[in-house]
């Protein structure tokens, strides 16, 4: 399972305003943040967490295997490579607007060292009652209101909707084993299909809620995977943006059409997921029906 509570976490870019607040909330929730890194600011402290100039220096003393990256977009590739070299095996990239080329490059390096990457453009992930990574859920009291331990996993293309869905389920007495904002970009480290493989072997998860949006092929890929190899997990999907299908033409280049094969519309995604045996929650209320049988 992702995010072992014993594993040490290093925050890259810890002295930033958002990162600092994230550290405060994560520590209060029980996350094992052992070190922070901001080049040039070694020796400082952020909410009691020691800051180092390099991940290698942090690794010598604290052996973190999890990293949260919250640095400006132009510095993300560099930061990720630095973490991989220092032994990071789970890397959350929160930064938005990372160029695709940089994401693609860092994923090649991650594969080489066997590191799981979540994001970029992800608010993070949480194991309710155990630990959280990133700003997911916001302030700690808000996190405790929204998430509750249980056996449903949430995988979401929107960070805000991760919390909204968890909050809805919590309100109806349905707890969560893990909730992951997979990231809003076209190219991300772990998509639905990658994460389903992990959840398949997780004894603490019985059911999964997927939140999808227009564009890309993540939902179609998942459907293809489920058709080939049915899952033991009870799957529910909620997709938003039906109206986008009806908007007048945003014309994509030939290349996108060839690569994506005309995929990307909500109706197409819903049809593919239904054929693969996924329960489609058409309204928010139906989410609890889908997960209750799990």
């Amino acid at each position, binding site marked *: 399972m992702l995010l072992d509570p014993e594993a040490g976490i290093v925050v890259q870019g810890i002295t930033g305003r958002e990162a600092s607040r994230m550290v405060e909330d994560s520590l209060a929730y029980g996350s094992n943040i052992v070190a922070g890194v901001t080049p040039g600011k070694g020796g400082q402290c952020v909410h009691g967490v020691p800051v180092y100039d390099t991940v290698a220096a942090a690794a010598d003393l604290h052996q973190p295997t999890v990293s949260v990256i919250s640095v400006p977009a132009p510095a993300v590739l560099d930061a990720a490579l630095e973490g991989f070299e220092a032994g990071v095996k789970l890397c959350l990239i929160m930064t938005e607007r990372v*160029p695709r080329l940089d994401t693609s490059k860092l994923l090649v390096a991650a594969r080489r060292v066997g590191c799981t990457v979540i994001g970029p453009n992800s608010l993070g992930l949480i194991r309710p009652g155990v630990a959280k990574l990133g700003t997911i859920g916001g302030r700690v009291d808000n996190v405790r209101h929204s998430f509750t331990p249980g056996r449903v996993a949430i995988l979401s293309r929107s960070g*805000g909707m991760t919390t*909204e869905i968890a*909050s809805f389920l919590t309100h109806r007495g349905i707890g969560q084993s893990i909730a992951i904002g997979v990231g809003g970009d076209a*190219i991300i480290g772990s998509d639905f299909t990658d994460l389903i493989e992990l959840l398949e072997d997780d004894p603490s998860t019985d059911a999964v809620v997927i939140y999808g949006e227009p564009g*890309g092929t993540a939902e179609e890929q998942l459907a293809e995977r489920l058709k080939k190899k049915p899952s033991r997990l009870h799957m529910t999907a909620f997709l*938003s943006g039906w109206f986008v299908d009806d908007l007048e033409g945003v014309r994509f280049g030939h290349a996108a059409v060839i690569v994506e094969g005309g995929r990307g519309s909500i109706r197409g995604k819903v049809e593919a997921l239904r054929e693969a045996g996924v329960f489609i929650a058409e309204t928010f209320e139906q989410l609890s029906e889908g997960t209750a049988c799990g």
Partner: protein
Amino acid sequence: MRLLEYQSKKLLSGFGLIFTKPTVVESVQEAQAAVARIGLPAVLKAQVPFGGRGKAGAVKFAETVDAAVTAAKALLGVDLRGTKVNAISIEPKLDFDQALYVGIAWDTVEKSPIALLSLSGGVDVESSPADGLACRSFDPWVGLVPYQGRQMGAKIGLKGRTLVRVGDVLAKLSEAFIACDGVTMEINPMVVTANGELVGLDAHVEIEDDALYRQSEKLESLGELAPTVAGRPPTPLELEAQRIDAIDHRGVAGRVVEFDGALALLIGGGGASLTIFDAIQRHGGQPANYCEVGGNPTEEKVAALTALLLTKPGVKKMAVIMNVVNNTRADVIARGVIMGAEKAGKIPSEAISVFRVPGNWEREARDIMAAAGIEAHGREISLDEAARLAVERNLAHVA
């Protein structure tokens, strides 16, 4: 950032790719002079930042000077999908034996760039038969090397000199794609001339917006860049919303798309905006607009957007619905919408039909709304329920 055709050609020429040379003109007189210099037959193409120009009538062929003048008159100043044609390119019409399609894009499954090569160069590449199409994703650190390009060429049946050249072309295009942060780079058609050269007749380059910070030097030499066109041109209300969003950099209170209905929406964050808009339509509501609010926008931005949406003709009420907010402050939204309603000359308790913003600073938001005589909601009602209330209360008003 989508480049115009002549800019795409100029950029890719820098990587050793060969194209027909466009002469760019902005008047009929210049066009006539250019044709006299280049010779006939000639091709005239509108320089607009979107594809499908052939089908849109933006490409014309001329056998005579008179025909070229007529074509230039027909193209210059014309409105194509909301974009005025300010410039056309003029090139000699080339004879060729075969037309290929060469392209590079992103493969979101492999998470790497992917090269594409097809025998069906021209306007309908998407529907080319599978055996005439070769695809290969490649390592972004290394790029595509010529032998990989030749393998692709061999797969679609290319031979001899063309096969060797196609390997080089794909390698050079991949170099350009990586060096310039491409989103899409296409040469279509790329023709095989009588003496075996590969010459691009048309090129389409899109550069990643999020990488413009490191591409500005390369782009500066290409002349004025056209704004990207997606769908219909923006309405005055959408332009005003863009202006409001740009007031300062804190948070988003924008991404407004105008619709025909009378129910104004102030909704967020990103995914929740899609969810709420769907729910409003499912309950029979007719939204006046789509928008996205998030990232903790300032009170002033929220107020300005509220006032703008509430003064749209026909709009009487606005629904304020957001997902559980992490970063955005519910109290800031509350103060902003009340200020905005007053600015629009409305009584807040009449203009705001639903206020559902749970999470960060929710208690303070409830107090602010209560003081204005509005019952605020939190997570006790779902997004769907909030949407239903908004539609119901808007209808009650109309009735």
